[in-house]
């Protein structure tokens, strides 16, 4: 187990990166606390896997350093870093039994046979696979294979970190929950540093204590699920997390109120005036948007989707689309609708970044 520090890390796949756009991973600093359960969340192609492979040593970063517990490991190969990595598609050694699969990393490291036997049995018990030990690994189900790949990583002594690269992609939906809670359980018991890459927000939010959100090669926010929900640091975070995502409305700001279209919207407090010429937007989650007849700004309701406990209302404010989440049974006025935003839940964004 280790604290992982990334120091001015950046990576470009091309040999001579010129502009910022050439970097698959733009320069950043980040510390992953020892024993933390992290999720690395972002859309496909945002650099998640690149970052993960840099931490595991499969990829050498073009800039910056990687430190485990203060020791530099940037130049070390993966086998010297003592990390476990579980891939999107289960990697098992087909021709071996489950036992041999689990023993493989130990045998490669010349661990004595008695010690191998003890640890393999311990690991099998932990994964609840003692009964399958003698079986060939080939015929197993995808989730059993994924457990073996995890076990192959954990069987080594005190691994520094466990990295998951979308490990549940090929698992049946009903087993996903089961496997994820097993992971949570392992984390509680052994307190490994875990980094879990996913593009699925539910997976990220249920697994992690802290979520690292990436967007176009940049780490845009590191925070608890609660922080990501209430104070998204970037419009992308607001939009990507939540269903539906945060409403982002272009506006002009004037002290304690914002002007959207022809209408004034109350803000939480006074804001510093943003620099001239920047893009100013107001962000509010659909959960904090209330539609009614009495007070607020007039809007036109475009469509209503019933999703059981809630209804998602798509509406327009002076031609700017936004959505609202209305509880079951609440009246949704078809015409003469008015909208009110909960001022404490309205965030201001300047050039996509949260304006404090």
């Amino acid at each position: 187990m280790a604290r992982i520090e990334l120091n001015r890390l950046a990576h470009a796949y091309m040999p001579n990166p010129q502009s910022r756009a050439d970097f698959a991973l733009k320069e950043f600093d980040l510390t992953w606390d020892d024993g933390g359960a992290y999720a690395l969340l972002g859309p496909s192609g945002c650099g998640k896997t690149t970052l993960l492979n840099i931490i595991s040593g499969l990829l050498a970063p073009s800039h910056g350093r990687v430190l485990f517990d203060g020791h530099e490991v940037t130049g070390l190969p993966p086998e010297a870093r003592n990390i476990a990595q579980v891939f999107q598609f289960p990697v098992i050694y087909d021709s071996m039994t489950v036992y041999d699969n689990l023993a493989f990393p130990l045998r490669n490291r010349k661990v004595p046979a008695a010690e191998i036997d003890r640890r393999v049995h311990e690991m099998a018990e932990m994964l609840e696979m003692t009964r399958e030990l003698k079986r060939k690994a080939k015929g197993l189900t995808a989730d059993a294979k994924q457990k073996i790949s995890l076990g192959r990583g954990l069987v080594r002594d005190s691994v520094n970190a466990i990295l998951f690269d979308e490990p549940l992609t090929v698992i049946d939906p009903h087993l996903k929950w089961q496997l994820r809670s097993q992971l949570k359980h392992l984390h509680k018991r052994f307190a490994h540093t875990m980094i879990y890459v996913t593009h699925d927000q539910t997976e990220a939010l249920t697994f992690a204590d802290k979520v690292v959100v990436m967007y176009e090669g940049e780490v845009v926010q590191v925070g608890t699920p609660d922080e990501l929900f209430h104070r998204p640091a970037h419009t992308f975070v607001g939009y990507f997390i939540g269903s539906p995502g945060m409403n982002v409305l272009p506006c002009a700001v004037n002290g304690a109120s914002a002007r959207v279209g022809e209408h004034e919207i109350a803000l939480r407090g006074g804001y510093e005036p943003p620099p001239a010429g920047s893009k100013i937007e107001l962000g509010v989650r659909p959960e904090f948007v209330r539609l009614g007849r009495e007070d607020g700004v007039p809007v036109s309701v475009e469509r209503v989707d019933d999703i059981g406990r809630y209804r998602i209302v798509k509406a327009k404010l002076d031609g700017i689309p936004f959505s609202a989440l209305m509880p079951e049974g609440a009246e949704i006025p078809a015409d003469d609708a008015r909208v009110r935003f909960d001022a404490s839940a309205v965030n201001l964004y300047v050039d996509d970044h949260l304006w404090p």
Partner: protein
Amino acid sequence: MEKKVNQKAWFFVLPVVLLVAFSALIPLMTVVNYSVQDTFGNNAFFWAGTDWFTDILRSERFHSALWRQFLFSGIILAIEVPLGIAIALAMPRRGLWVPVCLVLMALPLLIPWNVVGTIWQVFARVDIGLLGHTLANLGIDFNYTQDPLDAWITVVVMDVWHWTSLVVLLCYAGLQSIPDAYYQAARIDGASKWAIFRYIQLPKLHRVLLIAVLLRFMDSFMIYTEPFVVTGGGPGSATTFLSIDLVKMAIGQFDLGRAAAFSIIYFLIILLVSWAFYTVMTGKTKESDR
């Protein structure tokens, strides 16, 4: 679940059956016809029963040709399969050199067999051949027309040159189908190069190797053109393989009955050995599926 038997399939197979009947079964039946009869021309046939078969099976000439044939197939399999795997492993997995390597590898396969024979026949000649003459200049006494061992070396090297590419291309295709994650996981597991080969690459190559071994065995067991062009079966009968012997018997001596029996025995041996290879190699797969 019980699968429904669909008789319609027969209609789809029928054209192929007819085609195979004309191209293979009917000619084969003619051979069977010859093998159990004797003829002295004039379309007069006399029943010979199994005489030709016992004759062939007892003949010293057939035994030595058969022994030579097995030795030849054994040698070229022992060279071409490991060499093919080694070259496939050494080829780049991606990048600009991939098409270059592939084309270079495919070249020998594109050359007609008798041309391959002619190339090596000239190449290895002591008087004008690049290889033969160079060897002679180096003081090595090499003459494939007189020395049986030299003749064997020439024929084996020629076959390796001609056909190793096939094994390479098959293995390369097999290697390309291994996802990157396997290599990444192996690195994290601290696997050595040998362990990666033994536990990742070789198991994945299993199927293509089966095909490679079968193809190379069948082809080498039936080899005719190249040694015929280079050595003509000589010196003496040192490189007279089964097919060369068969042609001598059928066309040279016009011994049709004996040659027909020879053909059928020859065919059955290939069938039997191929079946044995297949059973052994797929049997192993089934075991590992358990």
